[in-house]
């Protein structure tokens, strides 16, 4: 839509080029700040040293085990939360009485910060992957569940009544009317849940000490290995970007037939 502009595209530069320049600028600033003595390099090491620490990390098996632990907790927690959220959402969303009855409880439970459960998780599972899973599931569940509720509410009543008058069975109504309408909402929920799940997985590891990248960050901080700490944080950021990209691409692929995606392409 914004492609028609009077400005000369060659002069204003392509977005990708400008973006790369922005990233390079950030790296340069982080290199220069400590080198020029503006920031204590014990607090913020220059980019080159962070990069060296990152290269170091990728050479150690410990790093890959931690990365694997984090990803397993993330994927498992997300899978549980998504299936529970979709099932509960469809069940509760399609029965008006249930919906009315649960609305206040959902509103109450949803804003409970999942980190409030950290002490409980520690007591129940110790520093096991179980405590990470519990937090991830709790936090990601609500994202999916609420989206599914919205999706089910969005079903065209005429279509639903038509299906009913054609004597579609309850299952067929869910399969052919409700599910296609709710699907975009489900994907939005999954996308939101995917990043929330990552945040909670790493938080749990950081605070509780469950195995994973978060724990490595805590260890690096405690042993004052500052460049390593920054390197690991960069890894979590990259992980976040990748998960976001993956979710967006997956959404676009799987919903290629849907109006929201088709409209985006033609516009």
């Amino acid at each position, binding site marked *: 839509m914004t492609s028609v502009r009077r400005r000369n595209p060659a002069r204003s530069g392509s977005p990708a080029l400008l973006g790369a320049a922005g990233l390079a*600028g950030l790296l340069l600033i982080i290199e220069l700040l400590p080198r020029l003595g503006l920031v204590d390099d014990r607090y913020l090491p220059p980019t080159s040293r962070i990069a060296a620490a990152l290269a170091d990390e990728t050479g150690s098996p410990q790093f890959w085990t931690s990365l694997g632990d984090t990803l397993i907790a993330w994927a498992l927690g997300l899978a549980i939360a998504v299936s529970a959220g979709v099932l509960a959402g469809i069940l509760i969303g399609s029965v008006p009485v249930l919906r009315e009855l649960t609305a206040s*409880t959902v509103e109450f439970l949803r804003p409970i910060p999942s980190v409030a459960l950290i002490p409980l998780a520690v007591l129940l599972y110790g520093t096991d992957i179980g405590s990470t899973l519990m937090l991830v599931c709790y936090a990601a569940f609500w994202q999916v569940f609420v989206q599914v509720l919205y999706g089910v509410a969005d079903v065209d009543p005429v279509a639903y009544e038509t299906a009913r008058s054609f004597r579609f069975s309850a299952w067929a109504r869910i399969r052919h009317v409700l599910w296609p309408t709710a699907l975009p909402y489900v994907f939005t929920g999954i996308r939101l849940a995917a*990043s929330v799940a990552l945040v909670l997985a790493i938080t749990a590891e950081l605070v509780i000490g469950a195995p994973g990248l978060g724990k490595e960050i805590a260890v690096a901080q405690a042993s004052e290995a500052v460049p390593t700490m920054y390197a690991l944080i960069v890894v979590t950021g990259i992980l976040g970007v990748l998960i976001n990209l993956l979710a967006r691409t997956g959404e676009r692929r799987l919903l290629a037939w849907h109006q929201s995606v088709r409209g985006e392409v033609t516009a």
Partner: protein
Amino acid sequence: MNVLKRVLYVVALPAVLFGAWFVLSDGSENFYSPPLRSILTAFGDTWQADRLRADVFPSLLRLFAGYLLAALIGIALGVAIGLNRRLRATVEPVLEFFRAIPPPVLVPVIMLFAGIGDGMKVIVIVFGCIWPILLNTVEGVRAVDSVVLDTARAYGVTGPARLTRVILPSAGPQIAAGLRQALSIAIILMVISEMFAASNGLGFTIVQFQRSFAIPEMWSGIILLGLLGFVLSLLFRLAERRALRWYEGLRAAQRQG
């Protein structure tokens, strides 16, 4: 009758759940899930004026300070970036990256710079919850209808009036969405920063209870955090509804039409 029914719908399930919890846990011998009766007693004993003043108020102050700062900076930067196409293209990947970093991992970094005082906690909150506000503001400003902008320009609406009368209201709903996301992140970060290193605060107190195996007290802290999250999101919704009244009206009218 109608009001009665609605009230019934709102309170029925919570009452049943709470009742079930109370009855089922009453004879509980399990150390980790004490009877609700003793949790409630602990709640009354624990969260009294002294502790509210010493732990809850500092937490809330940090939360509000961090949240307000993040909102101010986020909206200001967001408007600037949203209005300037080249600036946007330049900083977008950097912003995406910062948003993708799980905010709690910034706690150790900010501890390096700011120690473990109140400043650290406020900075952590600002740094974590600024991204949804910033990025949503950018999106909202970008999506301002160009016809509206051109019309405003043709009528000589420029400068501050253009910002406050045209751009901010039009981006309002999206900014509000960012602010809502940021609120829950702010609460999470408040608790996390206190769990890490602190001598007071809600997060600190709850972890103390857990470490000293004061289980009913720990449960009462979890319930208090839940209530806090609930009340804050309720307040936010009221404020949002007031600020965006014109928008809700517009949407309702569109839906009927």
